[in-house]
């Protein structure tokens, strides 16, 4: 039997689909209150539009694991920072072509010779870079 924590922790981020919400560091707590599962998450950016999708995904993952009617609550403090991304999360990002925060290395060819193209990217948490070695563009998770 999958525990409520395992079920919630396995939910993948709807925008960065290569990491789980546990790896991303936005899963704060999973507890059982009066027989109901209660999951606490925190948003990456305050306006992150993925938070509603994440909430729904957690509820359905728990329902599939046999925990119907879970509550998902949001907690702001302490504020999320990219330091909360786990080591396996950083590896999964890099393996899938997204440079983890703090690294300016090309995730394709590992060249350190890269250039920022745009300070903002396809999601609030990313910026856009390009590699001057292999000429491939790549997203990077901005340090926050």
């Amino acid at each position, binding site marked *: 039997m999958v525990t409520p924590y395992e079920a919630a922790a396995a939910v993948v981020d709807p925008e960065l689909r290569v990491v789980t919400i546990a790896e991303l560091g936005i899963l704060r707590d999973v507890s059982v209150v009066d027989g109901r599962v209660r999951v606490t998450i925190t948003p990456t950016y305050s306006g992150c539009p993925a938070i509603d999708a994440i909430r729904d995904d957690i509820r359905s993952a728990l329902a599939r694991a046999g925990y119907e009617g879970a509550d998902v609550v949001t907690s*702001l403090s302490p*504020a999320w920072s990219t330091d909360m991304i786990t080591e396996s999360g950083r590896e999964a990002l890099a393996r899938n072509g997204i440079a983890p925060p703090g690294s300016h290395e090309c995730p394709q060819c590992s060249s350190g010779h890269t250039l920022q193209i745009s*300070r903002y990217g396809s999601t609030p948490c990313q910026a856009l870079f390009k590699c001057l070695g292999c000429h491939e563009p790549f997203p990077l998770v901005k340090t926050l």
Partner: protein
Amino acid sequence: MKPLELADDALIAAQRLSEWVSRAPTLEEDVALANIALDQLGAARLWLQGLGDEDQLAYLRSDFEFRNCLLVELPLGGYRGELDFGWTVAWLLFLSAAQSLRYKDLAGSDAVAAKAVKESAYHLDHATQWTIRLGDGTEESRRRIQAAIDEYWPYTHELTEGVRERWLSIVEPVLARATLTQPGEDGWKPSGGREGRHTEHLSYLLAEMQSLHRAHPGAPW
């Protein structure tokens, strides 16, 4: 500052900035301005949720019930003119410098401010880089951003109430590096936003922002 004032500054700023979506000078800047608008909207929503029903507060209040400062409601271009990128950069520089100070001061006691403080620092950095590039850029870019600075300057008194000295210590070096002229003071300090006395620009902005919800209450995407 009260949570409603912080919320309304961010909400109205988000609505103004979103006018740029699909119209910015480059794709990268389109994405940047949309993301900054999204950050502003996110902070506004979190504060409004703490104050009551966010839809009611955003969509069903009248202009005189809003508590934002006047600067955020002003058009991002000459008076009722076209959107102007130079004006937008000056506006964002002034606003994000003030917001980053307010959020920093409140971060210990207000979870939303603690969340928004790093986002705001990134907006300020973005606006700073553009101010320097436009001010110290071409004749035209310089003319446009200087016009915006002159026009918006009197409104910054209301924006920076209580933090003006610290705000100047952020903005002055940026203007100097951009070789732009800091306007002199002539005693005109328009205010009234915090008491609900707004310019006509807010009414037009709210008409656009609220019309859908008022026509179709509770309509979801």
